[in-house]
């Protein structure tokens, strides 16, 4: 009852360009998430092959050795690459949204997107400064 969707004023409907941009962002999010899950699945299969229990302590992320560990089929390397892809997905979504809004000349939403990224960067930066 309270959530029935009723006809609305034309001004409130989404433009074709906005709708296409949202569809594209949705598809990109799904695609990136599938890639992340694929990498995590390879990591889990390698864990099983190597007899590693999920409760045994995993190694921390080491970007310097990540490429060589991937080539050596180290389970943790695939898991870390998958986890990094997971974390990158929403940040990438905001960047792609900013580009889409710029193409629509919707500068207010471009500003909102960039401001979100700036606030996140300040938060991460200040947390690292305080704790390091």
């Amino acid at each position, binding site marked *: *009852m*309270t*959530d*029935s*969707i*009723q*006809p*609305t*004023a034309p*001004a*409130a409907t*989404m433009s074709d360009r906005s709708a296409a941009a*949202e*569809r594209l*962002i*949705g*598809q*990109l*999010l*799904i695609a990136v*998430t599938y890639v*992340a*899950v694929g990498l*995590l699945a390879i990591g*889990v299969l390698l*864990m099983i092959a190597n007899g590693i*229990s*999920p*409760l045994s*302590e*995993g*190694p*921390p*992320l080491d970007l310097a050795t990540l490429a060589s560990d991937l080539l050596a089929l180290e389970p*943790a390397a695939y*898991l870390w690459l998958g*986890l990094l892809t*997971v*974390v*990158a*997905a*929403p*940040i990438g*979504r*905001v960047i792609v*949204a900013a580009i889409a809004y710029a193409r629509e000349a919707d500068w*207010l*939403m471009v500003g*909102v*997107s960039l*401001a*979100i990224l700036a*606030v*996140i960067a*300040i*938060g*991460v930066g*200040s*947390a690292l400064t305080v*704790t390091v």
Partner: protein
Amino acid sequence: MLVGLLMLGGGVAAGAFGSVLGLGGGVLIVPLLTLGFGLPLREAVGVSLICVIMTSSAAAGVYLERHVANMRLGMTLELFTAIGALVGGSIAFLLSERLLSFLFAGLLLYTAAMMARGRPAEPDVESGTETDPDADAPGATEPAPPRQPTQLERLSGDGYHVRNLGRGVVGATGAGVVSALLGIGGGTIKVPLMHLAMGVPLRVATATSNMMIGITAAASAVIYIIHGGIDPYVAGPTGIGVFLGATAGSRLSHRIALRYLRLMFVVVLVYTALQMLLRDVA
């Protein structure tokens, strides 16, 4: 192997639950990993952040593709939630966490009561005219020339008008502050805020919340990864489970009757409030 399967199964449940209600599923993952597998709380929270992002991306992708989530509204509110989280992190040491969580539990119970009553959130078709300065102009008999939509109209979606943006901004900022202070997901605040205060339909509110929770969780997850707070061996199987659950949940959510969706949300609000009160007492 059995442990991995249990983590996967727990992840499926948390992902489905989180994507349907717009909460991320952390409310299930943290107890599962701490009570079920004996993981330290910090490590469980780290894995939970990964699961929240996974739920958010898997569900938001589907909801955006189907135009259920409102991206403009979500991003606008998300900016203020991020600012609130930044402020909350800075003032955390100034406030009594016990008092704050007591007050927050009260707010959750009040919100649960409002949600249970199922009001108001009528799609406010008329409210769009309130922002139109020419709508009530005397003697406006000529057809109005084409005009640019107002900001509220641009934030609205097909079939509903967003209202009370000011209240939404204040609420979203508060959600960020409370999230940072109490370590709870903002979905418990954002969904009722959009639904009850801003006139957004419940399904749109949960879908939009799903999209919003990913970005703040990502910022926190970066910090956790840098400080070694995430164990890849736990995050791997749990994350896959969450993905499966969230994908299924977001594709099936429209089949769940609204009254059940509302009831589930009320139960989660009451559960979270009681958990905070019990933590206070302890």
